């Protein structure tokens, strides 16, 4: 048996091992990285409430030293639950939102290379771009809806349409 044989047999054996499971769902946007949030002791009650809200759903946004829960727009109980906007192209998502009465929308377009930290840039605009993966957004405190469009090279989409070709 040669080293080449060994490599081929090991590769075949490993390929036969069970591995079809999907990875676990990630914690909702942003919530996984706020554990080092610092706040004075006097802010502890606010922080506890914010952490509880974040644990339920949504992303955490740090404004000054106060953490605020921002439920994802498609999270359970939110106005866009089940809309699957991530499976639409940006114009389709915009049309859906307009049809359902969501007119106060900001589109944030991400460009660059997926996986290459520091290569990206983001711009905000009032109208949707013509292509890119739609990433479910969140309602800001004033009722404004932020929608993200991922146009980065190597992007893969997210949610129900992860891995589909970029619209």
């Amino acid at each position, binding site marked *: 048996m040669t080293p080449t044989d060994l490599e081929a047999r090991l590769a075949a054996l490993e390929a036969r091992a069970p591995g079809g499971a999907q990875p*676990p769902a*990630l*914690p909702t946007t942003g919530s996984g990285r706020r*554990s080092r949030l610092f706040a004075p002791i006097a802010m502890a009650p606010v922080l506890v409430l914010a952490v509880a809200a974040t644990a339920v759903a949504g992303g955490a*946004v*740090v404004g000054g030293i106060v953490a605020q829960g921002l439920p994802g727009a498609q999270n359970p109980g939110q106005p866009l639950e089940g809309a699957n906007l991530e499976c639409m192209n940006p114009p389709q998502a915009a049309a859906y939102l307009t049809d359902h009465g969501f007119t106060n929308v900001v589109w944030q377009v991400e460009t660059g290379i997926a996986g290459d930290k520091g290569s990206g840039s983001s711009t905000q605009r009032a109208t949707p771009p013509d292509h890119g993966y739609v990433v479910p957004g969140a309602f*800001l405190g004033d009722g404004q809806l932020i929608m993200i469009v*991922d146009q980065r090279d*190597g992007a893969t989409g997210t949610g129900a349409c992860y891995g589909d070709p970029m619209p």
Partner: protein
Amino acid sequence: MTARSETKAASFAEAAARDVDFEAAVRPHYAPLVRRLVVVMGNEHDAQDVAQDAYLRAFRSWDRFDGRDVRAWLYTIALRLAFNQLRRRRRWLGFISRAEPAPWSDRSDPDLWIALQRLDPRSRAALLANVLDGYTQREIATMLGVPEGTVSSLLSRARATLRIELGEGL
């Protein structure tokens, strides 16, 4: 759009972009990782548990990833968790005098499978990382958290064992 809501939007968008970034980089390695862990740990359920734990830990540490070799980074997290789990379980099973759970077995190449069973999990991990992934002894040492000389010994013993079980030429 007010300055405050712009700040909120930017923070949310930044976090969302990082999440998508993580999925794009790490998710393709998840299924291969589970298969690797099945072979190393010898048990599908343990492999699934460790892979899930490793994936979530990697997500939480994504900001600290140096951006070089995402597979090596994920495998490092997973293998260290795997060895910890195997160690804990051996202690526990010894304490309650129970046998190890039935291992995953491959009936398509029983000789190779049996030969691999004669190796300890750390040797299996080192062998696979070297033969299949092409990692150097130094890289494997980092991955397993052991000195380079230990990896050299693990690989040497693993190849000797396989030579006995499978024949000359390795």
